[in-house]
């Protein structure tokens, strides 16, 4: 009975078996992987990507995706570094986050209200943010001058977890709560699953979509600020050209569907960790960068295929049971 339950759980959440296999293989085959300090390292290295993926999860469950992320982070990183010497640390961060909210709001307005294709809108905003980022920073790297800022970005708790990872976990819990237990979360699933049906059921689909894009803009901006805090500086090409794709890949590898309506914040966490573990293993094995890039690419395709096969098998089973 319990075995059956475990099996059912595994086939419903395909990311769990995939992650487990990768984790066990890495632990057995790679020396130095199963080490508490290394495991915290993986978490710390991927916390920022994870935070951005949280916002992306909301948008993807809603049935859209946000490509403006990749240059939004360089814009907010530049703003948070450049403004902290003139207007103080807290206002600088607040301004950066506000920029993220505004970009998210523009995305949300154009997609939800004006009805333009999300790919087009967010691609356009991606170009816009890139332009503004270069304009503001004048193509220069900007150093962070405030010690508190960099201390937060580089600081760690006594047992090896960085402050950013703590923030990541807190945000995961909040996101889980919002998606699972609030009206907005349920509306998001409904709108992503079938926008027309959701609309007919009295759900304000426009507002739901709008809010989700704003959430994504906020987490993107936060990601940019955290990158700046972590490295102590901002650089104009930060995130270009494929950061958003890595974030989307993380979400999708977790098992959320780009068609919308299916997803879960823990899937996202798992998907980001799959990519993180692969990168970490490549590092530990000391392989050339290009091998690591290649394996990452192949694993993306492989996981996608596995997820497809596992989901289809589940579908067949449920058909025969019915």
């Amino acid at each position, binding site marked *: 009975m319990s075995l059956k339950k475990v099996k059912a759980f595994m086939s419903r959440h395909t990311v769990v078996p995939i992650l487990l296999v990768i984790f066990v293989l890495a632990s057995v085959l790679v020396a130095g992987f199963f080490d508490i300090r290394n495991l915290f390292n993986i978490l710390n290295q991927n916390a920022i990507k994870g935070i951005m993926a949280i916002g992306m999860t909301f948008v993807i469950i809603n049935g859209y995706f946000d490509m403006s992320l990749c240059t939004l982070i360089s814009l907010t990183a530049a703003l948070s570094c450049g403004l902290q010497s003139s207007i103080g640390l807290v206002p600088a961060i607040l301004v950066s986050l506000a920029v993220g909210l505004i970009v998210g709001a523009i995305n949300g307005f*154009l997609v939800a209200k*004006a*009805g*333009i*294709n999300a*790919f*087009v*809108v967010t*691609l*356009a*905003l*991606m*170009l*816009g943010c*890139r*332009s*503004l980022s*270069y*304009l503001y920073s004048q*193509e220069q790297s900007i150093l962070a001058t405030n010690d508190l800022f960099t201390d937060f970005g580089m600081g760690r708790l006594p047992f090896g977890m960085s402050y950013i990872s703590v923030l990541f976990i807190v945000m995961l819990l909040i996101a889980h709560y919002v998606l699972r237990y609030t009206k907005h979360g349920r509306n998001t699933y409904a709108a992503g699953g079938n926008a027309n049906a959701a609309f007919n059921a009295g759900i304000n689909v426009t507002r739901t979509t709008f809010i989700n894009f704003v959430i994504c803009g906020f987490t993107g901006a936060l990601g940019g600020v955290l990158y700046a805090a972590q490295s102590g500086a901002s650089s104009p090409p930060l995130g*270009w*050209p*494929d950061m958003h*794709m890595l974030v*989307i*890949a993380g979400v*999708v*590898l977790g098992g959320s569907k*780009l068609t919308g309506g299916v997803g879960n914040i823990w899937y996202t966490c798992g998907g980001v960790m799959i990519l993180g573990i692969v990168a970490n293993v490549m590092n530990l094995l000391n392989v*050339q*960068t*290009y*091998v690591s*890039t*290649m394996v*990452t*690419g*192949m*694993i*993306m*395709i492989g996981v*996608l*295929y596995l997820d*497809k096969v596992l989901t289809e098998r589940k579908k067949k089973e449920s058909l025969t049971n019915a």
Partner: protein
Amino acid sequence: MSLSKKGGAVQVMKDWAIVGAMVVVYLIFAVLSPNFRTAENAILLLRQVSIIAIMGCGMSFAIIGGNFDLSVGSLLSLCCCMCIDLHDKIGPVPAMAVTLLVGCASGLVCGFLVGHLRLNSMIVTLGMMNVLQALTLMYTGGSSVMLKDQNVWFGQIGKGSLGPIPYVTIIMVVCIVVYATLLNKTVFGHHVLAVGSNDEACRFSGINDRKVVRNTFVLSGLSAAIAAILLCSRGGAAQTTIGQGYEFDVITGVILGGASLNGGSGNIVKTFIGVMIIGILKNGFVIVGLPYYLQWLAQCVIILLAVYVAIQSERKKGTK
């Protein structure tokens, strides 16, 4: 096509409003700068856009079929490096043939994964982007490659011209004509349009949608390889990151050309116009002396405007 004829001249003009947009953008820069409105610059412009325009032809097929191909940028890098490197080893013609084959093979892999296994095209081509980048680095060992003798006839493909018209422009026009004919006049083209608008209906009516999708990716890979030959022939050298970011320029051009990203509609000539607008912006901002990064802001505004106007007219059509 038949629908627009019914609507008469007004409808035709509305359909081709993107040409008006291009003329307006051109005129703005022509007024701002006397250096921009010279004939030499117009020809330079045609030379500059040819790479992206050729890639846009292939990308149009992928997008009309309802998929994205994000791997073309990395494929461009790989093909450039291979073509330059092989030119000195096995001669120009075999090198070009191998390059084209590599382009088709990469497209075939993407097409197999997307068409036959039905995986999401965005993630698959993103994965392929990584793989191709890695292959490029592996092939070159990370260093850039160069032709030993820069004065070979191979370099003339990219640099030379027939009278005032550069060879690359001629090749671009040929590509556009071939791809447009393929899309509008052949059975395969109609199948692509049909699969893009409703793949399930196609399956029921006996179209092999898997094969069609696969072939759109092969076309996309082939066009990237052709573009790569022109690009590396012009430069006489190639770096491993030469194609980075090209995919977004190409997709932006296709979007400006009015192809629906949900698949099912699009036009190769309009794609060319879209690419031209981006080319004019790139060229114009430099000539007028504005910082190059402002062109992205301009692109952002133009994309949103173009798509917004298209949607509004679409809605009006719907209410009539």
